[in-house]
């Protein structure tokens, strides 16, 4: 049987890039069809296909790394670069929404009354639920660091406890934010204030859900003994992503909730 004479990972042919691309096509076309013809079937089909692609693709990555040993140190270095570049692209994604917020709020137009928050808008009190949410996410940053140290020290029980706590805190944030959305005295349709508020915090909330899911997958893998004290990059990637989500919230809190009120 031939063996490779290099430490890099030459992947097996995979159908998931194709199914993922078709999922993206169906979701975007489906969005257009929904807007114009009120039918959601195409968009739903695309979403189902996306979920199937995601599950199977990342299942295969776990198989390739943990079960087949393909994630050598050089291969892992590539994965690290990849995750860092992805998070950087997400930072730029949020930068756009912060740009939009500051564009409208630093020089409020006469239509808004010439001040910010605009006329007719009752902003949320930054020292009520938003402050609690800040504490929740900061605490989750501590617990995820605790989980990392537990994994590195080979303390299985503490790793599982602290990772579970991190996920619960993420769930608590999502729950509190959903309540805030329900109770808010303004909507996304309330001018530029509503638009910037809900688009920025909405995308952040989506990232909290994604991050919590990533951490939950890591918890599942930690329980099943996938991680060793020296090799647990999947967890590190999830922890990096989680810290990114926390930092975005801090910027949101300072800019939109506090300064913007």
């Amino acid at each position, binding site marked *: 049987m031939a063996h490779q004479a290099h430490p890099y990972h030459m992947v*097996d042919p995979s159908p998931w890039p194709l*199914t993922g691309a078709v999922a993206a096509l169906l979701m975007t076309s489906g969005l257009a069809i929904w807007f114009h013809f009120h039918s959601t079937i195409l968009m739903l089909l*695309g979403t*189902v296909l996306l979920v199937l692609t995601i599950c199977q693709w990342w299942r295969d990555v776990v*198989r390739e790394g943990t*079960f087949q040993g393909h994630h050598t140190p050089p291969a892992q270095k590539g994965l690290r670069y990849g995750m860092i570049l992805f998070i950087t692209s997400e930072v730029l994604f949020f930068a756009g929404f912060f740009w939009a917020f500051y564009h409208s709020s630093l020089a409020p137009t006469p239509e808004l009354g010439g001040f910010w928050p605009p006329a007719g808008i009752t902003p949320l009190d930054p020292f009520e639920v938003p402050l609690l949410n800040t504490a929740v996410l900061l605490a989750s940053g501590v617990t995820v660091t605790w989980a990392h140290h537990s994994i590195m020290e080979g303390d299985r029980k503490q790793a599982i406890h602290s990772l579970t706590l991190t996920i619960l805190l993420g769930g608590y944030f999502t729950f509190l934010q959903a309540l805030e959305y329900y109770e808010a005295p303004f909507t996304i349709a309330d001018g530029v204030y509503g638009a910037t508020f809900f688009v920025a915090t909405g995308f952040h909330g989506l990232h909290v859900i994604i991050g919590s899911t990533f951490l939950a997958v890591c918890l599942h893998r930690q329980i099943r*003994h996938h991680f060793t004290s020296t090799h647990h990059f999947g967890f590190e990637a999830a922890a990096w992503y989680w810290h990114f989500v926390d930092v975005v919230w801090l910027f949101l809190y300072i800019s939109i909730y506090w300064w913007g009120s």
Partner: protein
Amino acid sequence: MYRHVFALQQVARRTITSSARRERNRVPEKQKLFQEDNGLPVHLKGGATDALLYRATMGLTVFGTGYVLYELWKASFPQKKD
């Protein structure tokens, strides 16, 4: 209502950690399965469930491609409103 949510969180945590303690390390078995020299690609190497999931996903992909082309073709021609 919030008491129920908090209680659920505690139950979930205890359920997760108590079943986690009993979990035997099955990674060596998985390593043997996925390193077997049978020529199967990684996305099919886990067994029959892999093939089932693959066929379902690819089926949806092929159907979806056809369906989207049909919908886009239909959307390209203005419908007369009567």
